[in-house]
């Protein structure tokens, strides 16, 4: 062990914290700016020299947001559709992950590769054919239509298979010896063990589905069914004229997620770290 004076340790520690701290503040700053700007008038935001803190709390931006776009309803739509997708994805990923990891059958690898290759298609590729299909099935402008392309996620299947590989075969074989069916094994052995990865996957899928723009834009026509990113698009085009309102809209979208995150933070990062296991 090298010998260092306590002061040197202290110095190193401060340096470390300092560097990380500056970076962290830089990372968090856009959110702070977003909240501050949402209370500034349009003039204040774009004036020079820069206004960092609003002179007084201006609520006009929020009023404009609530007036111009159906934000509450869109929120509900986003939450609902993202929630449904998360449920389906967790279910489908774990079942198929279990199948690929622990069951031997012909075509295991082939099917798996096929499913993975679905990741290679950008949304635009599937947009038109899927739109035509959805309209023939009368699924346009409905929750089912919105969640249709997201029900099985190649990413989820991949993660779950990797994770379930790690579960000792002995557990499963023992259960099989006792005559348990696969469904029973899934529910009583696998599910409890994959909780952490499920919560990590769930969070990622939730965030990604919440953020989907292209497909909802295509499939939704009526105002009542719009999701958040679609509704925010209203402000990109008018962005120059309403910088304050676009910040207010962004704040309304981002802040609740951050608050939830702060509460469940430990679970988030713990689950997240499980995504990078061995291959």
């Amino acid at each position, binding site marked *: 062990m090298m010998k260092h004076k306590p002061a040197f340790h202290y110095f190193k520690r401060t340096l470390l914290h300092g560097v990380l701290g500056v970076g962290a503040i830089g990372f968090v700053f856009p959110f702070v700016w977003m909240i501050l700007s949402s209370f500034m008038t349009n003039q204040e935001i774009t004036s020079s020299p820069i206004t960092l803190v609003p002179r007084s709390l201006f609520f006009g931006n929020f009023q404009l947001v609530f007036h111009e776009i159906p934000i509450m309803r869109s929120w509900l739509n986003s939450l609902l559709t993202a929630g449904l997708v998360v449920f389906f994805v967790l279910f489908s990923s774990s079942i198929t992950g279990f199948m690929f990891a622990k069951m031997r059958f012909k075509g295991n690898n082939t099917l798996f590769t096929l499913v993975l290759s679905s990741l290679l298609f950008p949304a635009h590729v599937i947009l038109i054919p899927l739109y035509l299909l959805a*309209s023939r099935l009368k699924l346009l402008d409905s929750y089912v239509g919105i969640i249709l392309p997201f029900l099985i996620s190649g990413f989820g299947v991949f993660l779950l298979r990797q994770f379930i590989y790690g579960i000792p075969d002995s557990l499963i074989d023992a259960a099989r010896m006792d005559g348990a069916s696969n469904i029973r094994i899934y529910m009583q052995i696998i599910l409890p063990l994959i909780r952490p990865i499920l919560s990590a996957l769930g969070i990622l899928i939730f965030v990604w589905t919440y953020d989907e723009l292209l497909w909802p834009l295509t499939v939704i026509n009526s105002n009542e069914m719009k999701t958040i990113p679609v509704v925010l698009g209203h402000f990109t085009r008018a962005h120059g004229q309403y910088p304050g309102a676009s910040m207010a809209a962004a704040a309304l979208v981002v802040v609740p997620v951050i608050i939830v995150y702060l509460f469940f933070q430990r679970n988030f990062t713990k689950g997240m770290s499980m995504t990078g296991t061995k291959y």
Partner: protein
Amino acid sequence: MSRNRIAVIAMVLLFAICIVLPAQKVSLNMWMQDWPGGIAFVGAFNKYFTDKYPNVSIEWTLIGWSDLGQKIIPAVIAKEEPDIIFGYSEWFIGQDVSKLFLKMTPDAFTKAELSKYIYREAWDKVYSIMGKDGEIYGVPWRMGPDFDMVTVNLEMAAKAGVDITKVKSWDDILAVSKKMTQYNADGSIKVSGISLDNYWTLCQGYITMVRQLGGNPFDAAAGTWNFNSPAGLKAIEMLDRFVEQKIWDPNSGSALDAFTKGLCASFFIGPWFSTYALGTYPNMKIDLYQVPAINKNSINLIPSIQMMAFSKRVTGAKRKAVLEYAKELIGPTFMELYAKNDPGIGVILNKEFVENYKAGKYEGMWPNKTAATLVKRSADETAQFIPGIKPIPHDTTFDQWAQIMTPEFQKVFIQNGSYEAFVKAISDGLTRAEKEKRL
């Protein structure tokens, strides 16, 4: 009367009631552009219509402009389009409208009735996009020539001592804009006298300028564009003067942005954006002046035509209601409601309305002076613009023009690129796009 007869009459009456009553209620759905002015006047018109035809109800869905433009054709393919579609003709350039929408003539109105309503000169253009084989497939009511007017911040004009009513030539535009430009201490531009940064508009404007200078850039037979002519070069040189003479800072951001933030004193864009600005910043004093035709050669390109089209899948009572709606659209009532609710009209196609206006029939309809000014400007612009309309049968859309020409403009304005390179690049780009459409 014998009991039999009474019974028969009663049954016939009952039968008639059973058929007629349920068939009376018609519910139409509509896709409408999501913008306050439009919501106001179309809403007013829908109310007028449903008051006049109480068995019809209209429900609309509000959709933003560009989303609406992208949804219509896929919806028609998927047989999901609404009964009434609000839109703009540039979305249908190069498409076969007879396959997309309901035919209007002669069931909604005859060609004779229509010609009472649309100016003859405008008819060519409307027909070339919304017509096929002599029939028309939509109802147009205005055009929005974006490059035809300059919107001016009156406060800045007054401060610079500028009288915009005296602008009669392009040199005047340069002079007037130069006066309104404000500079920083180091000589850089603080406030641009005029902004050209609305490339959607500028592309159309450039082609118009080339034609006004006597050029003929499109060869319809071969489907090629060629701007490599004296006219093509002169037009870009004229536009570049605004940068060369330090009147416009091409890095100052989009025109509407800059205008509403006080970073430019005027910009090339027509009436409908000025009402948009007015709505957002009601404290701004705004006025417009006409862009003079070069060499008094008034040839105009077709701008975007605001219109409604109807689903060709409607049958029975719905079809009847839709045709009635279309017929009501061509009367002056619609334009009156439009002008009352959103005065920044643009070029008006409804002859009757304009003639009524000139005859003073609408005296006092706009107590707000700015609104009254805007309507007057629209009427003046109509008189100037319509006679010069000479359409070009291109199949490429305005979006494609903007995508192809904007970067080349930017190379000239920002990077001091050569005019020869500019005309060559846009000739190649537009020709290739045109060829693809004709594959």
